């Protein structure tokens, strides 16, 4: 009798232990997951890291936007750090006047977009030739392509200035635009490499089928190859546009005395003017707000373009061999 009782007690204890353990495992499963990367804890960890880093990326933009809408009262008020009490748009207006915004904006956008369009075509053609066509000394040219990629632009900048001076191109947009038409220009080698990587992933049967259907090389490129490289094109267009929009180095050296300059130059000129004014003793509490407003005016078009293009861009990055 006793033994039976003790046995059943033990069974109950065992049973409840089992239940407890089961509960524990299910809890563990929920927290840690069947594998590490499926549990709650891990997800929490991922989110914490991502949100932190995302904050680092967004903070300057937030700072920029909040600073530029502060008026004098908000700037001097020590309790206002992030959120101003009132929204003041005067700095934006002043910055746009100092930047000569409407004119410089048109110049910047026409320069960046014309370079981007030219680079897309010329680099696609060159990349296509490197990936799928045959021509003499292909290996040598391939090595020179890589060489162009790693070569700092500074090494050719002085002779280029002299060359463009000889052509009478200084203080015009031609030094930026014409090299782009030939697959060079700002980071042109990188775009050729992107296209080459993309075209070399396509199957060989594609050429054969098009050739069989009687397409010549040009028709094949423009009707078949270029249209299917949409994902690479999105990446190249965005990079090219953004980098040319932001580029300060080439315009500053090729058109240093020009009247009509892109936004990156006017920003630098404006910063110089403000520094001079500061040196002359004109200390103003608005300086920072105006600078931030100017930065915002320059970044904003890029943000709009990026928000518009991001879906295809991210998809494109995943699908192209952006890399070999």
């Amino acid at each position, binding site marked *: 009798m006793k033994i039976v009782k003790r046995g059943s007690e033990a069974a109950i204890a065992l049973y409840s232990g089992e239940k407890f353990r089961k509960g524990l495992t299910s809890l563990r499963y929920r927290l840690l997951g069947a*594998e*590490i*990367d499926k549990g709650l804890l891990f*997800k929490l960890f991922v989110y914490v*890291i*991502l949100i932190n*880093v*995302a904050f*680092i*990326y*967004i903070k*300057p933009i937030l*700072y920029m936007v909040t600073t530029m809408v502060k008026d004098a009262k908000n700037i001097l008020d020590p309790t206002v750090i992030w959120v101003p009490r009132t929204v003041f748009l005067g700095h934006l207006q002043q910055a746009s006047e100092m930047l000569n915004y409407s004119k410089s904006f048109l110049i910047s956008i026409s320069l960046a977009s014309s370079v981007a369009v030219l680079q897309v075509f010329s680099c696609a*053609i*060159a990349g296509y*030739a490197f990936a799928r*066509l*045959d*021509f*003499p000394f292909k290996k040598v*040219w391939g090595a*020179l392509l890589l060489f162009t990629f*790693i*070569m*700092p632009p*500074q*090494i*050719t*900048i*002085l*002779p280029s*200035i*002299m060359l463009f001076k000889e052509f009478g191109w200084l203080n015009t947009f031609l030094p930026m635009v014409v*090299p782009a038409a*030939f*697959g*060079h220009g700002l980071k042109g080698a990188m775009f*050729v490499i992107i296209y080459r990587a993309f075209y070399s992933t396509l199957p060989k049967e594609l050429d054969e089928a098009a050739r069989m259907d009687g397409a010549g*090389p040009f028709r094949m490129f423009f009707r078949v190859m270029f249209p299917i490289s949409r994902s690479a094109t999105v990446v190249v267009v965005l*990079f090219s546009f*953004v980098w040319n*929009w*932001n580029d300060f180095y080439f315009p500053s050296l090729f058109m240093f005395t020009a009247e009509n300059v892109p936004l990156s130059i006017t920003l630098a000129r404006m*910063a110089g003017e403000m520094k001079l004014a500061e040196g002359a003793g004109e200390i103003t509490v608005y300086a*920072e707000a105006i*600078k*931030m407003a100017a*930065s915002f005016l*320059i*970044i904003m078009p*890029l*943000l709009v373009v*990026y928000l518009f293009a*991001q879906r295809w861009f*991210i998809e494109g990055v995943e*699908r*192209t*061999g952006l*890399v*070999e």
Partner: protein
Amino acid sequence: MKWSRKFDSTTIRKLEGSLFIAPWVFGFLVFVAFPLGYSLYMSFHQVKITVNSVNYTFIGLNHYREILIANGSLLYEELIPFLRESAMMIPIILVFSLLVAILLNLRFPGRTLFRVIFFLPVIFSSGQIVQEFIAQGEGSLSIMETLRIDYYLQEYVPGAWAAPIQKVMSSFVLVLWYSGVQILIFLAGRQTLPASVYEASRIDGSGPWNTFWKITLPGLVPYIFLNLMYTVVDLFTFPSNPIVSRVNTSNYGSSSALAWIYFSIILTFVLLTLFIYSRVDKSLSGKR
């Protein structure tokens, strides 16, 4: 059709190919090769620019000797700290971008939003705007000041390294800002690893930790080196870097010489990277 009678098919193919590559080759010769040769030529000459002519006097290696030996402060005082700084920035950029790319590759709600945010640096980091942010002190992490890390650094790290470490620390956020393209490259590279391999490793009982070290990392080795190369090139050619800003129109001859010296340094680094890569690749493929 006439062509096909005159030439065989390989010749035609070569002609077509040449036609496609011709613009690029032309551009290369005019906009890259010619200026390159010319700057090499100038670096051996004293260049005097007058109103309507340019005079060259051959002075041999004088410019190089001036920069490398006689007046070394121009190069070394700026180059050495910069190299130290890059030596620290490059691993940080690589590790950080790899980590972020791996995280962004996971599936979780809100992934698209995070991707949009994480690609922002690609847009901004190339511009003047970043300079503005540095000037505003947006580059630093306030935790560095709170923990008084700079004080400990000065206490315990040899002086030559303390300054660059401090500089990297104080512009740590900026380092993260420079890793936009690297994240993209890693993310694209991660996509090329086939899902079937991961499935197989899971069936064989490998945990995620193990999988990362045994599959993801070896698979990403080419991309790590690609990124290493890209980062080196990017850091070294950034217009605001100290040496590059020395290349200006004030003295064509010695600026060209400086550019060539600088380029040979970059080339050494890139070739070193490629050499290490070929070694690593060989040893990895031997294992497989």
